[in-house]
């Protein structure tokens, strides 16, 4: 198979080094991190710090094992970006060893074993997230609730966050602390509504209370702002996020229209969970996604459809990580069949051809 050759999007303008692109993406997550810290306490920041340290250590260890220039590759900020994306994706008071496992797996197995940045077929952050989600489901499902809805009187202090993450407290106290502050995410609440209709669920399930929904709306808006910044800087193109959100909108709109008693509205799907974060920060990874613009549209739409399928009928409340991994898996084939027309040729090379190269 002839691989699709396209000038790397990073090198289109002078002065746009890999490190600059990575720094800009990290900066674009700041609105989201601020909102998450505001709503859910210091846990997110502590997670990001743990993740960054682990990522740099793992990257340096593997680079030195492979006898590569350690400082040169550490300075491209790609390991830090993976760490930041994972740190904000994990629940705020997840124990430290979950974060360390996720980041170490992401850097070592999803990235460095394939040869480092530019060679990884799967998005490292989502590999790390998926591996801890299937391995440690209990700590991974403990999201913090908004202040007005949980039983605790005051917000989680910095010390309490540290205690919860590093598990300084005896088990009983630690459980009491966690129980006082955690509640299900809206997607989790909607998934476990069982026999309730959608309207009953929104009125009775605490996780679907308007205050909790609003907090997730703010998180998603913050990532939308960061993502628009990346679009404005032309670090990402519009194709993947628009296709992803569009497909999610169409899927949820269709099933809401068919069965509005049991399905959640498109607005709910677009403003809860990792919809915006996934659309602008995860799916747009230039390495593991498709290369051509047509390919990006197919890739994004595939993720959107899979997110809805997993959210509505699957076993996990949110499907962004799995949907992205599944489409990463399909990306090389999509690239192969969505090659743009070569200048001077009549038609693009598409379609199924057996034994052509033999």
């Amino acid at each position: 198979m002839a691989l699709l050759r396209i000038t790397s999007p990073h090198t289109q303008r002078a002065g746009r080094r890999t490190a600059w692109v990575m720094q800009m993406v990290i900066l674009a997550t700041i609105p989201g991190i601020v909102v998450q810290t505001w709503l859910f306490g210091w846990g997110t920041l502590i997670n990001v710090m743990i993740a960054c340290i682990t990522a740099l250590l793992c990257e340096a260890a593997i680079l030195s094992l492979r006898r590569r220039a350690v400082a040169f590759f550490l300075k491209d900020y790609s390991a830090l970006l993976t760490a930041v994306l994972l740190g904000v994706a994990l629940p705020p008071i997840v124990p430290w060893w979950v974060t360390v496992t996720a980041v170490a797996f992401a850097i070592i197995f999803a990235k460095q074993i394939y040869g480092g940045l530019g060679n990884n077929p799967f998005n490292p952050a989502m590999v790390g997230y998926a591996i801890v989600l299937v391995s440690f489901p209990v700590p991974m499902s403990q999201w913090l609730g908004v202040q007005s809805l949980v039983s605790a009187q005051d917000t989680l202090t910095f010390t309490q966050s540290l205690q919860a993450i590093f598990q300084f407290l005896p088990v009983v106290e630690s459980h009491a602390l966690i129980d006082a502050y955690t509640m299900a995410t809206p997607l989790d609440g909607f998934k476990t509504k069982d026999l309730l209709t959608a309207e009953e669920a929104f009125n009775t399930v605490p996780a679907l209370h308007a205050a909790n929904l609003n907090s997730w709306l703010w998180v998603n808006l913050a990532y939308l702002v960061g993502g628009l910044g990346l679009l404005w800087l032309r670090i990402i193109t519009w194709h993947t996020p628009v296709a992803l959100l569009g497909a999610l909108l169409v899927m949820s709109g269709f099933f809401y229209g068919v069965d509005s008693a049991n399905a959640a509205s498109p607005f709910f799907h677009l403003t809860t969970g990792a919809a915006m974060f996934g659309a602008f920060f995860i799916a747009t990874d230039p390495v593991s996604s498709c290369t051509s613009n047509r390919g990006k549209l197919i890739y994004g739409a595939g993720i959107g459809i899979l997110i809805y399928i997993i959210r509505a009928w699957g076993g996990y409340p949110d499907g962004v990580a799995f949907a992205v991994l599944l489409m990463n898996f399909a990306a090389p084939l999509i690239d192969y069949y969505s090659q743009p027309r070569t200048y001077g040729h009549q038609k693009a090379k598409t379609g199924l051809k057996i034994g052509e190269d033999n």
Partner: protein
Amino acid sequence: MTEYLLILVSTILVNNFVLVQFLGLCPFMGVSGKLETSIGMAMATTFVLTLSSLCSYLTYNFILQPFGLEYLQTISFILVIAVVVQFTEMVVRKTSPLLYRVLGIFLPLITTNCAVLGVALQNISKQNGFVESILYGFGAAVGFSFVLVLFSAMRERINVADVPVVFKGSAIGMITAGLMALAFMGFTALVQI
């Protein structure tokens, strides 16, 4: 109608034979080097699997069961599968010499694809009916083809990656297959069968 659709979704995605049940890994690793070869192998396997699940159903229900010979099921299924593969080989040779040349040694090797025997045995243990058996075999084959083709496209990309020497070849292929199996865990509990 719905149950037939559920059988297909279950066998293609949720209980994918390669990535969830880990059957048929030999052709999965062996034929995934080139995209064109894998597409040919996928089509041949689909044909063989569907036909052999039909034949093994008939063998079990009309020969083995009436004579109380259920204990011979494994060996008779192996025989049935070998016959079906030989038949496919003859058909492919006549109809598409090019495909026959591309598939080469892999066509006879379908005989040893454990997914083919696995489908026949699972059809018995799940007590699938006539139509269910055929659909189960067809769905298993489509799921196998689906991941085989995607995997071969991905392997062509990995072949040009800067993989550490000790992991080159099958080792990185196995790790990739593991990560793909991780991705397929997203389909858990999509349908219960």
